């Protein structure tokens, strides 16, 4: 029932907003649907806490500690982004970059995108997971090109083609997985693509096929995670799309894609052992972390800057999943949470900052504290949090990842430290002059909704200072599932 609500509410929202998305009250409607989805997700979480993992709808849907935590996170960030987007998109409309028809498209696609992500998270069927991931891409392509500028069209085209080709590789992986599973589970009852069934027989799946399948899965879904060298679409899509879209792409979609990779990894490890999957995840992860960190230096556009920071952080998380074991998995899951919260809050402030300055070019953004102390301090605190300054939660998770790496794979530690150090210097050096100093930026015509920024940052702070035992237990349970 709760699953049906979580999936159905955003879908209903998409249809409703397709009809009324051009009206004045559409942003409020968007917030309302997101709030209702959040409530449904909360019910689902309560249910899983009370009754444990469950299978519903002829085993087509499946909830365990791993995905329910992501569902909660997705619903929460989806809701706060809708709150942020209300004044933000009104200002964009005032500036004349959008009209009410495009706002209708935006609102409707926003809800559809949420629905696709929930489907990807909740489905037990590896084929449906693929369909949902593709649907998530399709629903955001037109959002990236919402402004119809040359740059945004180019970004959306790149996004479509790269993610389309990438996800085609994942489909080949799915076919190979089905091919292996069919020989063990048979065609009858259509169980051969159900994750729970595959998980039960993973020891008997043909290792050669699964090894090949994993390569295709990692390349396919990895493109959507933004892993280097398949990351090219990510900075463009983040920079050229409307800011609420950048926030949900970075904060949510990347997580969901990584979730798909990890689900595959669990199956493959049961068949061929941990060596190949963990090596591959570690290599791709480290490469992305380092490449992301170094490319930060060359950015001029504020949203591109934080797009590259997302590549760096997804690299660190992927690396941690590659390390494996309870501690590293715990740290990776924690990092997924804090990155998602922090990065979306940064995009909120960065969006309003560029509206106030009239440009996304960082050279043109100066003295934010003078124009609006909340935007300025929000951006400063968010940047400090994402850079892993204690006492924020990002520090705890990065610290855990570092010490686990030192113990198991000492060779990787210097690379990680270089990535973190380079990213620190790169981001801090660019954010500091934007926040302080003289300014000629204009005050915003609508007062921005910055409560989400500080709520997110407060949560990240709490996760860094004191993690409630219930939450810690939850993360541990999820980490155990991943193995």
């Amino acid at each position, binding site marked *: 029932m709760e699953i049906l609500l979580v999936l159905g509410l955003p879908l209903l929202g998409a249809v409703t907003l397709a009809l009324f998305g051009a009206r004045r009250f559409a942003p409020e409607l968007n917030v309302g649907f997101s709030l209702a989805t959040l409530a449904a997700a909360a019910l689902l979480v309560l249910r899983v806490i009370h009754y444990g993992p469950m299978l519903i709808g002829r085993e087509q849907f499946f909830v365990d500690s791993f995905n329910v935590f992501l569902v909660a996170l997705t619903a929460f960030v989806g809701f706060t982004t809708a709150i942020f987007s209300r004044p933000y998109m009104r200002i964009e409309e005032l500036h004349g970059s959008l009209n009410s028809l495009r706002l209708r498209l935006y609102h409707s696609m926003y809800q559809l995108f949420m629905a696709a992500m929930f489907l990807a998270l909740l489905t037990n069927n590896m084929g449906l997971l693929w369909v949902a991931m593709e649907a998530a891409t399709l629903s955001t392509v037109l959002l990236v090109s919402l402004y119809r500028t040359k740059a945004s069209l180019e970004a959306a085209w790149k996004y*479509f083609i790269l993610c389309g080709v990438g996800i*085609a590789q994942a489909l080949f992986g799915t076919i190979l997985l089905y091919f292996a599973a069919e020989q063990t589970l048979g*065609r009858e009852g259509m169980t051969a693509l159900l994750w729970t069934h595959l998980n039960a027989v993973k020891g008997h799946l043909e290792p050669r096929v699964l090894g090949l399948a994993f390569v295709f899965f990692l390349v396919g879904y990895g493109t959507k995670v933004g892993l280097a060298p398949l990351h090219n679409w990510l900075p463009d899509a983040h920079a050229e799309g409307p800011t609420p879209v950048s926030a949900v792409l970075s904060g949510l979609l990347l997580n969901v894609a990584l979730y798909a990779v990890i689900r595959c990894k669990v199956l493959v490890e049961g068949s061929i052992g941990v060596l190949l999957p963990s090596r591959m995840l570690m290599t791709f992860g480290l490469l992305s972390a380092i490449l992301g960190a170094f490319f930060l230096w060359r950015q001029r556009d504020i949203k591109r800057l934080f797009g590259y920071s997302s590549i760096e952080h997804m690299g660190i998380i992927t690396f941690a999943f590659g390390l494996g074991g309870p501690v590293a998995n715990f740290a990776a899951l924690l990092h997924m949470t804090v990155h998602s919260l922090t990065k979306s809050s940064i995009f909120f402030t960065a969006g309003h900052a560029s509206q106030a300055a009239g440009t996304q070019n960082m050279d043109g953004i100066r003295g934010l504290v003078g124009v609006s102390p909340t935007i300025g301090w929000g951006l400063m605190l968010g940047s400090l949090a994402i850079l892993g300054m204690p006492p924020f939660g990002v520090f705890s998770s990065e610290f855990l990842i570092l010490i686990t790496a030192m113990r198991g794979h000492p060779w990787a530690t210097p690379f990680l430290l270089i990535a973190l150090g380079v990213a620190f210097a790169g981001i801090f050096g660019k954010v500091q002059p934007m926040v302080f100093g003289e300014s000629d930026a204009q005050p915003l015509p609508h007062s921005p909704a910055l409560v989400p920024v500080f709520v997110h940052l407060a949560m990240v702070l709490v996760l860094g200072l004191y993690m409630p035992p219930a939450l810690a237990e939850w993360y541990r349970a999820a980490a155990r599932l991943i193995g």
Partner: protein
Amino acid sequence: MVTRASIGPLLNVLASGLLLISFAMLSRRRTQRLIILFAWQGAILFLSTCLVAYSSGLTELYYSAALTLILKVILLPWILHRLISKLGAQWDSETLVNIPTTMLVGLVLVIFAFGLTQPISTLATTITRHTLGMALAVILLAFLMMITRRKALTQVIGFLAMENGLFFAATSATYGMPMVIELGIALDLLVGVFILGIFFFQIREQFDSLDLHHLEALKED
């Protein structure tokens, strides 16, 4: 009448046809010709799915064959055709550099695909097992086409040809995925082409051309 024993070789013939069309696509300049080739690929897929359905006796596969016929032989080529006539791009052609080199790279890809799937195809119990390598080759050739071409429409046809290869892999290795999944994939594909259609008009409105050379402004500086 086709006997069940003769289906294996027949399927191999069809698979070779698919591969041959992929090579033809690599060397065609005119967009309209490419759409026709794409429709032919769909027709071969339809035939091969029907054959597999007949030999395995799975009725589900007849549905997926019908889906292929409607979607890939009729609907998608028709949409693409309408699109290029609306865009006035029927007579568009692009200059291809180095067709011989592209062909050679294509050949290497085919050998690579066969090498990669060799150990796996011996595991298959289906009569269609040798075709897995062909399917991967079709996917890789479509990929090559997307890399070498600079026109938006050509890249999309490459993308669709890649999907054809995937579909062929699904029928040849596993007798097709469950129907729900296939419907989902078909829906995604159709929506994708619609979105691309909208996209083409937006691109042309902004750039006055569908040449992707214009779409190279976002680079790292």
